[in-house]
């Protein structure tokens, strides 16, 4: 029995295994590079997919890894979008600092809301997050002097990226910008969920009582994850506001929050690729099917979700795992 087999050694090896660079992680950058090859007409769809993937990734951190089911994550997307948009309307359109402002505002909101709602559980928690997003929507609607109300926030201008790259009509800069942010967040989250903090959050998810009895500060850790997740959602919102040069009531809505949950479930919650694959599949499906008949798309989507929950918990990636195990 050498040092390697003892628990600390095993732990070290286990952590090293998790942090090891895997080829599979390059799939996302490669997939993002495929869009320019397909042609400039795919930039808009690709940008939208990257933004949605970013938002769903943030939701995955909270729902999949921390086990906190929320119906109101769109609130933070909206806070980020409006914060970046309003700063730009008021005369500061620098994109990178705009992202930081959007993410910071959303993270602060997330910290406050998380500290409040995480004291409750299950049904009450769902209702509180639901009420929060409806409240946010009503405030954004009401404060039209700040947000533009029903018409949305118009007049957002985004300065050239790094002072050099103009946001062009074809959306090439926008796409590159969104893709880069997504890749950075992707690797950041990959590191976070395998870091001791991320591992402890998953431990809390699996058994909160045991985690508490081991001396973990359950509530502060969950609140921190809530704030990080909210900040990332705000980042996605700010990104959208800057690239589309618009923010609207739809960004801070229950519908959008539910949509993100659906996308996450389709891809597979609790794994980072689930969020990305779910977003791509959802947006492509929507692009192909919803143009002709939105009701039919909604019907198939509903059938698909019910089928996934009943027969394929774990989503598309769960199916892949099972096919491989066979």
């Amino acid at each position: 029995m050498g040092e390697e087999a003892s628990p600390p050694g095993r732990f070290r090896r286990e952590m090293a295994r998790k942090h090891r660079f895997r080829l599979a992680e390059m799939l996302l950058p490669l997939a993002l590079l495929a869009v320019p090859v397909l042609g400039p007409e795919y930039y808009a769809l690709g940008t939208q997919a990257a933004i949605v993937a970013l938002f769903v990734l943030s939701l995955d951190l909270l729902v999949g890894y921390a086990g906190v089911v929320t119906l109101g994550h769109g609130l933070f997307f909206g806070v980020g979008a409006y914060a970046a948009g309003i700063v730009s309307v008021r005369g500061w359109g620098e994109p990178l600092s705009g992202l930081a402002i959007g993410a910071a505002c959303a993270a602060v909101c997330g910290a406050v809301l998380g500290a409040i709602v995480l004291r409750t559980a299950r049904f009450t928690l769902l209702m509180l997050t639901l009420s929060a997003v409806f409240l946010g929507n009503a405030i954004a609607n009401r404060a039209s002097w700040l947000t533009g109300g029903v018409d949305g926030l118009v007049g957002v201008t985004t300065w050239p990226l790094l002072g050099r790259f103009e946001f062009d009509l074809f959306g090439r800069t926008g796409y590159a910008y969104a893709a880069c942010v997504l890749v950075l967040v992707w690797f950041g989250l990959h590191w976070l969920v395998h870091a001791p903090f991320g591992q402890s959050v998953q431990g809390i998810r699996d058994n909160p009582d045991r985690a508490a009895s081991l001396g973990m500060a359950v509530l502060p850790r969950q609140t921190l994850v809530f704030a990080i997740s909210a900040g990332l959602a705000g980042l996605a919102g700010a990104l959208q506001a800057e690239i589309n040069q618009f923010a609207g009531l739809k960004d801070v809505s229950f519908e959008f929050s539910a949509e993100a949950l659906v996308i996450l479930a389709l891809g597979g919650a609790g794994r980072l690729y689930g969020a990305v694959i779910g977003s791509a599949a959802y947006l492509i499906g929507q692009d192909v099917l919803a143009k002709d008949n939105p009701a039919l798309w909604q019907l198939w989507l509903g059938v698909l979700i019910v089928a996934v929950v009943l027969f394929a918990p774990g989503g598309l990636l769960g199916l892949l795992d099972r096919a491989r195990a066979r």
Partner: protein
Amino acid sequence: MTADIAFQALGYGSVLYLISVGLSVTLGLMGFINLAHGIFAMIGGYLAAVAVAGWGVPWPAMLVLAPLATAALAAVLERTLFARLYGRSELDQVLFCIGIVFIAGALIRLGFGPTLQPMPLPPALRETVQVAGMGFYAYKLLVIGVGVATALALLFGLERTRAGAIIRAAVENRGMAESVGLRTGPIFTATFALGGALGALGGILGADVFGLNPAYALDVLVYIQIVVAIAGLGTLRGSFLAALLIGVIQTLSAYYVPEMGTILLFSVVFLLLLLRPRGLFGRV
């Protein structure tokens, strides 16, 4: 003015109570977060509207027939689909319900179009009735009557009859109820169907407040979830009072601060849930 507000609030509260009481009981009984409960209101409303306008069935008859049909559908759905979700994770339950709401909304939209479906009322209900020197809208009187009568009947049924005692036992301690020989499966199905029927009844009566459209299930969802959350799980009295409270808040804000209505409502809900996470009347 005060009487008018009270009357409006009572009418609104009655509709909310009818739709939400089924949800409250099923949530207390099976621990199942049925975000799809609003589809029963939508189905009931559409059944009545289509039967009255298209086939000439009298409206009062549909008040009975539509809930019966919805109850049958609810029982089938419970046996085939919803029962598989008991005891599953919260995320699965939420997603499943979102899927069901999507399917129901899409089917309604494909069948009846995206526009508002008119609900033809008998002319007698559209008149104003004079009571004690004040004029009341006859339809609202009926809504309040049905709401209050249902509340009393349910209260009596649950606390004074054998069936009610069985349901209460199953809510209180499912394992114990099963081990003394109660078959909880059929109890769940029956209460689910009853909840669906009452939801359909509320959906018909509430068609003028919420407006029958393919998003009906989502429109009412938020309000009935609020009622259940504020009341606390499985308390009938609580559900009625909570529905009334939401009715009062909605009516008062519509009269005095119409533009702040939603903000006010959700602020109050947020505060109440924060101070009383188990609801105003829930057992600790």
